[in-house]
């Protein structure tokens, strides 16, 4: 951030954990940000200060601390709203994570307490997702289909790891109530085109949701420009703490939707035989929210804004180009996902012949301090699609370097030696 220029060494100094040593004196090479990101000192300090000086419950406490905490909590909402280009701050709902945001929307459909036509669902209605979804954008819709008798349909994925939209018109049709797809795949890195799907959804009167858990942390996302109806993402993948996520939705839809969880602070008035509900966003924020976590997310948004999301994207694009080339030099290594960096984020998943990802990950960690994720990354249908049980995944963020990719490649050569 020196002189407005992106400087990864300067950035790394903001992340205390990156300078720690692992047992045995190994340096930490953290290539697992797609799983969860590390936190800059600014986020840690903000959360600490909130707890040391301002903490109390929000919304309901009339004293000084209550006012300060409420102001900080609501300021975090303003920051998130500005960060994603939300037309209104009330369209930003704090959840505990992206999964809750997706479930919140899924539970709005087929709910007998909601008579809005857009959220009615029953036999004959259809929900469309894709083969490249994270389980959190699959299971809520499977459960919805089971509750309502609706049919769940899937966009296929091409061998290159792109969405196959060749049957778009047939898959998204007048029976479709909602299309929910991932904006950037957590396994393939693929950034999906929204426009064509959205245009078709609009044509048939279906709603559209984006799982943006892997895009909002890594590129400038403007929800108004994207034009979808709902966008879900999570704080812990974007330098913020765990326990805080976001649902953005169009105001008129959020207002028409039934409450999700009932409890304190989401009501207008409660009688013994019924209740009326607070306006959005509070209608969807039952109970004491994750106060410190929301404020921490606000600090993360400040940090990313100061760096500049275009700079983050540019840096990660360079790492992706470098990483794709470096991995192509490992004998037999197969990238699962696009092999070029176009419309692709810094997530590199791969297999190595005759060596299971768990063994790859174990040796990378134990011998080289390289932290990657191994397994199906909560995207089992996608792995089945590619006929593999698991992959090894290296995922990059603004604090990663080409040296760390070199360490990964050195580690992979050693893995092949052990199993050779």
């Amino acid at each position, binding site marked *: 951030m020196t002189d407005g220029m992106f400087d990864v060494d300067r950035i790394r100094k903001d992340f205390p954990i990156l300078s720690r040593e692992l*047992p*045995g004196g190994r340096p930490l090479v953290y290539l697992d940000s797609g799983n969860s990101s590390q936190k800059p000192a600014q986020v840690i300090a903000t959360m600490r200060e909130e707890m040391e000086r301002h903490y109390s419950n929000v919304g309901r406490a009339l004293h000084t601390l209550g006012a300060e905490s409420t102001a900080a909590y609501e300021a975090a909402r303003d920051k998130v709203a500005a960060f994603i280009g939300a037309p209104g701050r009330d369209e930003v709902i704090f959840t505990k994570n992206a999964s809750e945001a997706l479930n919140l929307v899924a539970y709005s459909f087929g709910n007998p307490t909601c008579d809005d036509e857009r959220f009615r669902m029953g036999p004959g209605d259809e929900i469309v997702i894709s083969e490249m979804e994270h389980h959190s954008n699959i299971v809520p819709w499977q459960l919805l289909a089971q509750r309502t008798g609706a049919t769940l349909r899937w966009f296929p994925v091409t061998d290159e790891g792109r969405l196959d939209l060749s049957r778009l018109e047939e898959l998204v049709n007048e029976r479709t109530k909602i299309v929910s797809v991932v904006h950037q795949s957590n396994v393939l890195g693929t950034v999906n085109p929204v426009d064509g799907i959205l245009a078709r959804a609009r044509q048939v009167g279906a709603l559209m949701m984006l799982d943006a858990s892997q895009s909002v942390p890594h590129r400038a996302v403007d929800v108004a420009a994207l034009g979808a109806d709902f966008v879900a993402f999570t704080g812990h993948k974007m330098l913020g703490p765990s326990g805080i996520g976001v649902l953005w939705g169009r105001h008129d839809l959020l207002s028409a939707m039934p409450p999700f969880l009932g409890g304190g602070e989401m009501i207008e008035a409660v009688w013994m035989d019924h209740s009326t509900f607070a306006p959005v966003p509070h209608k969807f924020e039952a109970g004491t929210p994750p106060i410190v976590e929301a404020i921490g997310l606000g600090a993360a948004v400040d940090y990313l804004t100061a760096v500049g999301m275009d700079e983050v994207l540019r840096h990660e694009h360079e790492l992706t180009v470098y990483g794709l080339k470096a991995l192509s030099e490992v004998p037999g290594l197969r990238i699962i996902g696009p092999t070029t960096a176009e419309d692709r984020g810094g997530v590199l998943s791969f297999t190595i012949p005759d*060596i*299971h*990802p*768990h*063994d790859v990950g*174990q*040796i990378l*960690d*134990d*011998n080289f301090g390289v932290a990657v994720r*191994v*397994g*199906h990354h909560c995207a*089992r249908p996608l*792995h089945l699609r590619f006929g593999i*049980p*698991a992959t090894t995944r290296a995922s990059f963020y603004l604090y990663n370097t080409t040296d760390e990719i070199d360490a990964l490649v050195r580690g992979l050569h050693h893995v092949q030696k*052990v*199993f050779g």
Partner: protein
Amino acid sequence: MIAESLYQELILEHYKHPQGRGLRDPYDAEVHHVNPTCGDEVTMRVKLGDGGKVEDVSYDGQGCSISQAAASVLHELATGSTVGHSLEVVEEFTRLMQGRGQVEPDEDVLGDAVAFAGVAKFPARVKCALLAWMAYKDAVARSSA
């Protein structure tokens, strides 16, 4: 270089050259066990004979070197043994795996399976080593039922 104690030569050898792999007939019981967190799986068949003799342990599966080598070592130890003795080995193996690296393994009971002692220090991998052994215990229980 902690992993050196995990990936013992014997484990790598069994992984590269699994013993007794492949499902065979006849059998008394077949079980399928999975490890949902990592997707490892094993299908195991057991054929018992007179006097509690274990005539065959056949298996197929997929997963990491630890889980696959553990199945191979189990095949060697159990086939030709007796139900009683093999379950004693399973018990000792389980005690070792769940001992967080603090348990001194009984090599007389475990034989080659002692090579897995290092796995006990990696809590995330213990379930890999135990997968086939738990499947065997289950299959024997079903065979005897």
